[in-house]
């Protein structure tokens, strides 16, 4: 599903590369943790996968396609197959829960009928069926992250990228979010999650890829944080 072949990426203002000669192969339906301290290249790894960044060298394949060869107008199609969630949720404060989720369908031109049926179903799935008319600032952090997961998953993407999704949440709430991500993974969605939450990584016992100064220093099935 995801394949990196000798991928390197450096930012102009930094002397150390953000990612150095990375080789990774992730198959469909896998759940992968990216671990490592801040600045180790986790976010760059994720941003390369949906073409928010371009690699300096190497090739990246997503769903069998070399995304480096992909022309610009196809990038939106790539992103429709990749859901993204973030530490800061990136919800729109002027829209309700339902509207935030519906927005993701609206802007890719889905018909109204689909939106009407999909939005309540996905809100139910993430456990917010009774809070669809609430605004983000009326929700707890965990609930906001559930909205953002609903928005990322409503389009049934093949891949879900999660950048520190529990970074702003307490341990108890984090467990709830991880259960939700695990459920989504069970539906066949490949999940790649950057985290430096030791407790979560150790509990889940999934594949762990450890980055240090942009290099992959460990790739371990059913691994732990350290």
């Amino acid at each position, binding site marked *: 599903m995801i394949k990196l072949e000798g991928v390197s990426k450096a930012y102009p203002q930094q002397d150390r590369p953000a990612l150095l000669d990375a080789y990774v192969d992730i198959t469909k339906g896998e759940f992968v943790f990216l671990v490592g301290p801040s600045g180790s290249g986790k976010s760059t790894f994720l941003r390369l996968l*949906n073409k928010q960044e371009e690699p300096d060298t190497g090739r990246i394949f997503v769903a069998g396609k070399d995304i480096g060869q992909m022309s610009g*107008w196809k990038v*939106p*199609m*790539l*992103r*429709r*197959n990749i*859901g*993204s969630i973030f530490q800061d949720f*990136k919800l*729109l404060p002027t829209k309700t829960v339902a509207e935030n989720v519906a*927005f*993701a369908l*609206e*802007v*890719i*031109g889905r018909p*109204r009928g689909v939106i009407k049926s999909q939005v309540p179903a996905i809100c139910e799935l993430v456990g917010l069926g009774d809070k669809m008319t609430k605004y983000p600032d009326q929700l707890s952090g965990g609930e906001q992250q559930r909205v953002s997961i609903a*928005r*990322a998953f409503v*389009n049934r993407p093949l891949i879900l990228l999660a950048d520190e999704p529990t970074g702003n949440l307490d341990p108890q709430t984090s467990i709830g979010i991880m259960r939700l991500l695990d459920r989504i993974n069970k539906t066949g969605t490949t999940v790649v999650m950057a985290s430096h939450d030791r407790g979560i990584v150790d509990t889940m016992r999934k594949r762990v890829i450890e980055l240090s100064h942009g290099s992959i220093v460990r790739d371990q099935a059913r691994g732990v944080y350290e």
Partner: protein
Amino acid sequence: MAIRIDYLFKETGQNLVRNPSLSLATILTVAVSLSLMGVALLVQRGVDRINTSFKDEVEFVVWLDVDIQNEQIQAVQNFLDSTPFVDSSDYIDREATYEEFQNFFAEEPELLQLVEPDSLPTSFQVKPSDANVELIRELGTEIETIAGVSDVEFATDNIKAISDFSQGSSTVMAVAALFAAGAAALLMYNSIRTAVFARRREIEVMRLVGATKWFIRIPFMLEGLLQGLMGAFLSIFTVFAVNRLTDSFFTDLGSYVFRDFAVPNLQVLSIGFILLLIGAAIGAVGAGVAVTRYLDA
């Protein structure tokens, strides 16, 4: 995959009312610059109309000495008949001149009493075969050297001066209009950039979930287009009013040369159409560039 119409209208409307003062400033700037452009076009057409309406009447008058001899009159007549540059000429004798004089000063009988037909100079009304101003001038200088000719008066002198002046002012206005249009486009660019900035979170989400660039761009371009069109509409009213005022001004003045300067409403409409096109282009393109620069950033 088609963009839903209701979504477009909702987005465009929201953008317009989100920052009403900026919207208004943009619309007014467009209106002012397009008004300038419209008036420049108006003057240009007016000049064209004057020039064409006088093309057929580029006569000049050859004034003869009061005490001219008949042979001399004949000599002038012969010259005018022989040169190929003269289409036709009419001799206006004393009686005809006096009659015209009487008509002209009908309001002032005291003046009429002072003038005897014998004291008036006679003249030739000459219609040249070519409307070329330089040619007529040369011809006139040549005629002035004939004995018994006191003066050659060109109608074209006045017209040329006026049309030169109008042409000049129209060029100045066109340049000013270009600058104003540039300012309008820049303000449009800024206005849309502000709108884009206000919606940067939405745009970020849109890009993440896979909205196409055009999908993000079109509501902003539509907003720019609408602002451009509104400005253009305002400028059409201005141009229309200016044309009306010009017309009544010259009619009141009784100006012979300028009687055709104001253009008919149909031509104002055609100028209006041009202004609408330019307004729409400034709006849509300015907005498109503003959003694209943000999208590529």
